[in-house]
């Protein structure tokens, strides 16, 4: 029997840091066969990317491999010299990275960067190398490959860059492809394209693929086998179907339970208490014990070994050991999608009519305005008290700009935003201050949204002071304490600085800041997209509870359809600055009418096997907002486009039940 493609035994890698060595990879064992896709899943900081870099021997400065063996096709890699290892890198074993934007050299053209690999590993130069490079680009689905060889990375879209990265990885004809979060930086429709490409290439070349991801949907769609990583160690390993049918490790189960879905609408999501332990020391017991709901005495004193569950599934957990009390393991959820408690639709508090935000493009000697970027081009929305309107779209569609224009953080070029019947655009400073008291915002990046030089108390108080809310300083101090408690933090934390908090805690502080002036409407701009799924669950729970208790209305800007499904009452789908479809969330997500909405929904990788459905592949990328296509903006990518679509932009069609769609198929 030939050896497995990749065999890793007890791999340990430490990274030097100010607090001592971080044991980023702490005893990883895995086996990967030819033609197999092996998914390594875990949340940020669990060591999954470090494992990949350790395999490649590309650890960052200060990192070193402490122990373990890596066998590639039966050949031990650790004893290899650096020169021999270079032979392997990009040859037998290639890697693609998360950020296509920064992973390509900006000053070398695509052809040169591809030719490097060909020269290094295949021995091709000059004309033959160029021909081969063009073939590779064509193979990864880049149209007009010959001409693209002379392009520089900045001339390519994100999806195209990732395709180039894949072509570069393929150039050395690797037997093992390591893909480190290959689609995390991409939009969902582009992600679908890239995943499909990876799956096809892997089939054609019968490569082994080590797929590193945090997205269980991607795992479900792509993987043959799955390993869950936690705090530097693999805690569970199983064939895909067994894993998705019955995840065993308490951590794996928590990951599933934290996912927002329509079925959990109206109910709280399960969350994980505490945070990942520091990796600077030796663990005595189970590293998950501190956060595990089922942990008992033994878990804290003895590190669990592997317990074989049969069928290739094994788990590191005492629950399944000799004296364990294995819990009921059925992941499948009971019940049908529920509506939750939906407040009755009242009058709109926030009314947006034909909102336009155009940015001028200047060119030439005199910097004349030659064009307009129509970031937002005629958006109309209504948001009633106590309800959640999700504004959905891919990056660059203008959804964040809508949010900022509503708060007048960006000046609108046209249209109107009215709050409680008052036109926000024409208010003077005093009038605007009155509106700001009722209309607030929560931002995406919990690390960029809190001033690192201010105490938490000052951060929360700032808005109250600026808007003259809550009277005296004493009242304000009291209010800060109340607010911190209402978002699940201790009042005593007001004297601390943001850097002492985790991402989820910071987002809570940001929410408390917005709530400080008792707003009625909160614009939430991707409030959970920077967070891990278990932390996301906490924030979503909090937002939902606040809505119930305070009757808040949310304008919820997001690209994550699962979150929409869980949170939103109404949905508006944006494409290239315009809303293409809007209406009640349940209707739109179950029965989309616009081809774009449908493609968007189907592009999301699904966890449940029965819901894995054929993806509608959208061709190409979203066009530029400077020169949108004539007619319907979506027609170049639309599978159902016909002649009329190429010339006339569709008017709104009202479908009843408050559904509106802009598509010629319905007019």
């Amino acid at each position: 029997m030939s050896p497995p493609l990749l065999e890793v035994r007890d791999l340990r890698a430490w990274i030097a840091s100010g607090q001592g060595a971080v044991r980023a990879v702490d005893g990883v064992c895995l086996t990967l066969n030819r033609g197999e896709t092996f998914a390594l899943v875990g949340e940020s900081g669990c060591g999954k990317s470090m494992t990949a870099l350790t395999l490649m021997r590309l650890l960052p400065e200060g990192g070193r491999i402490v122990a373990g063996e890596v066998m590639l096709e039966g050949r031990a890699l650790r004893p290899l010299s650096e020169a021999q290892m270079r032979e392997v890198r990009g040859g037998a074993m290639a890697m693609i990275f998360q950020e296509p934007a920064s992973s390509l050299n900006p000053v070398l053209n695509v052809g040169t960067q591809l030719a490097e690999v060909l020269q290094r590993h295949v021995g091709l130069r000059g004309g033959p190398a160029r021909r081969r490079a063009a073939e590779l680009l064509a193979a990864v689905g880049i149209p007009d490959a010959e001409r693209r060889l002379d392009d520089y990375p900045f001339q390519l879209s994100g999806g195209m860059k990732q395709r180039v990265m894949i072509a570069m990885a393929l150039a050395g004809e690797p037997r093992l492809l390591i893909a480190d979060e290959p689609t995390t930086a991409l939009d969902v429709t582009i992600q679908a394209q890239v995943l499909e490409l990876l799956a096809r290439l892997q089939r054609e070349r019968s490569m082994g693929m080590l797929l590193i991801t945090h997205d269980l949907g991607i795992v479900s769609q792509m993987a043959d086998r799955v390993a869950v990583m936690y705090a530097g160690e693999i805690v569970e390993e199983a064939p895909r179907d067994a894993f998705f049918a019955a995840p065993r490790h308490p951590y794996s189960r928590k990951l599933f339970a934290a996912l927002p879905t329509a079925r959990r609408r109206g109910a709280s999501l399960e969350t994980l208490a505490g945070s990942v332990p520091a990796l600077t020391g030796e663990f005595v017991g189970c590293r998950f014990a501190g956060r595990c709901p089922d942990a008992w005495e033994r878990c804290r004193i003895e590190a669990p070994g592997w317990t074989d569950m049969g069928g290739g599934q094994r788990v590191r957990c005492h629950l399944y050991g000799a004296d364990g009390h294995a819990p009921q393991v059925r992941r499948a959820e009971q019940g049908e999608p529920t509506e939750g408690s939906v407040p009755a639709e009242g009058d709109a508090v926030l009314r947006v009519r034909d909102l336009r935000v155009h940015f001028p493009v200047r060119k030439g000697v005199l910097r004349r305005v030659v064009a307009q970027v129509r970031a937002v081009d005629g958006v109309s929305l209504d948001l009633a008290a106590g309800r959640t309107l999700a504004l959905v779209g891919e990056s660059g569609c203008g959804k964040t700009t809508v949010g900022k224009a509503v708060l007048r953080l960006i000046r609108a070029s046209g249209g109107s935003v009215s709050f409680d019947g008052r036109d926000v655009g024409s208010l003077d400073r005093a009038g605007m201050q009155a509106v700001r008291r009722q209309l607030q915002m929560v931002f995406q990046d919990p690390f960029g949204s809190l001033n690192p030089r201010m105490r938490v108390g000052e951060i929360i108080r700032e808005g109250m002071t600026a808007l003259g809310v809550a009277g005296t300083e004493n009242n304000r101090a009291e209010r800060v304490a109340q607010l911190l408690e209402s978002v699940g933090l201790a009042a005593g934390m007001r004297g601390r600085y943001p850097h002492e908090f985790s991402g989820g805690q910071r987002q809570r502080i940001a929410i408390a800041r917005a709530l400080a002036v008792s707003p009625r409407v909160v614009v939430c701009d991707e409030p959970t997209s920077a967070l891990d799924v278990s932390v996301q669950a906490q924030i979503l729970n909090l937002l939902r509870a606040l809505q119930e208790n305070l009757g808040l209305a949310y304008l919820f800007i997001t690209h994550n359809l699962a979150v929409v499904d869980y949170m939103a009452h109404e949905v508006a789908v944006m494409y290239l600055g315009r809303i293409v479809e809007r209406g009640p969330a349940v209707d739109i997500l179950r029965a989309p009418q616009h081809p774009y909405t449908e493609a968007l929904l189907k592009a999301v990788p699904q966890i449940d096997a029965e819901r894995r459905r054929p993806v509608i592949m959208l061709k190409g990328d979203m066009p530029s907002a400077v020169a949108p296509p004539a007619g319907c903006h979506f027609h170049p990518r639309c599978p159902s486009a016909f002649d009329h679509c190429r010339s006339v932009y569709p008017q709104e069609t009202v479908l009843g039940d408050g559904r509106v769609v802009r598509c010629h198929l319905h007019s």
Partner: protein
Amino acid sequence: MTPVVLWTDALIFALLAVASAFGWYSRHNPLLRSAWQKVGGSRAGMAALTLLAVFAVVGLLDSLHYRPRLESAGGDGERAVYSGEVLSALDALATGLRSRGEKTYSAPLATHLFARETVERADGTQFRAHPRLRHGGVHLDDPPAQHAADLARRFAAGALSGAAIWMVLAGVVALRLARRESVGLGVTWRRIWRGDTAVAWNAVLATFAALLLVAGPVIFLADAYHVLGTDKVGQDVLYLALKSVRTALVIGTLTTLVMLPFAVALGIMAGYFGGRVDDVIQYLYTTINSIPGVLLIAAAVLMMQVFIDTHAQWFATAAERADARLLALCFILGLTSWTGLCRLLRGEALKLRELDYVQAAQAFGVSQWRIMARHLLPNLMHIVLIAVVMDFSALVLAEAVLSYVGIGVDPNTFSFGTMINAARLELAREPVVWWSLVAAFVFMFVLVLAANLFADAVRDAFDPRIAARVTGADSGVKG
């Protein structure tokens, strides 16, 4: 005596106040505190800081000015008469060095003049010999026989005193540490030397050891000799070097102090407001920056000189005049070097403006000025700090070059530049007069090296990534 506060004195004490305020602010801000703790843990940084502190003490002593009361010949009833000469606390401490001038060159620790002179014997015959010094080694009856022994005795006494002082110092440090950590003195002592302390006390103590072992013998020898020799007009070179320290410090710190408000305010405004404001500020600094530094300084100094000369009646004493020129030089250097910091801050403010916490403040309707003061400025302070410490050494070096060219400090002001300028032809003499240059070299090198090392430690602690963008003073004075 009557105290005199020169303009630069006042500014130095203002600077001291600003620095203390910043220190107090740092103590109560965990981010700044942890950055300073990193500086404290850096051995090179702490050794450099120790040296800089010693230089700063010399400079501060030299900034306490007064006019001594003249010995009045008449009775008590007369009004006190004060000398036109302005002295400093340092002069008072080093009265010996200041007052014991020789006729001309004498080598370090010499007892005789460096050059032969024609001496007349009692019998009227003349011969050429090295005459005895007026002060250096006068206590020796028979210099050739006693000289070496006397030097050795004084050296040993000095070294021993230095060692004794060091022991006391190290003991105090160890005791305080031991009490704070509640561990034994022996344990603390071993921890210090193993480098197991949060602050790199081993570097501080080692630097003090080196300093005291040099300073002890120098003090004992300076009592009776010119340790670094004398210059052409017989002034003690050690005294010249000590007096030059203040000038270097003034140029290195006040220049930044006077330009800082402009650079910070304009940089932040340009970055935050953008648009027309940005255009105007950018135009302003590009224009000033496009005049080569040395030439702008030369032109400005020439004009200032004319101005001071035509308004001589404004200055009561020569010291005030020299001081005005020193301060003006600081302003001129500041004018030419603010552009670099301004541009850097503009770029950083441009990035901060887009950050969500600034947007959040805008969503609350917080006023523009408040946003700049509360959100931008505190997050740019570390860049300002790094720029200040990095500029220091460049400015000290620039002073020497400018004074050499004749567009620096007043020729009567003690400075490394004037020292070098006066000594540059001495190397051409036969035999060579090397000590003035070597003294200036050693003092400057130690000061600038310490400043550079400290700047590196500060930069690494506060923002290592800024290194590629901050490149020290942009005064363009490279020679």
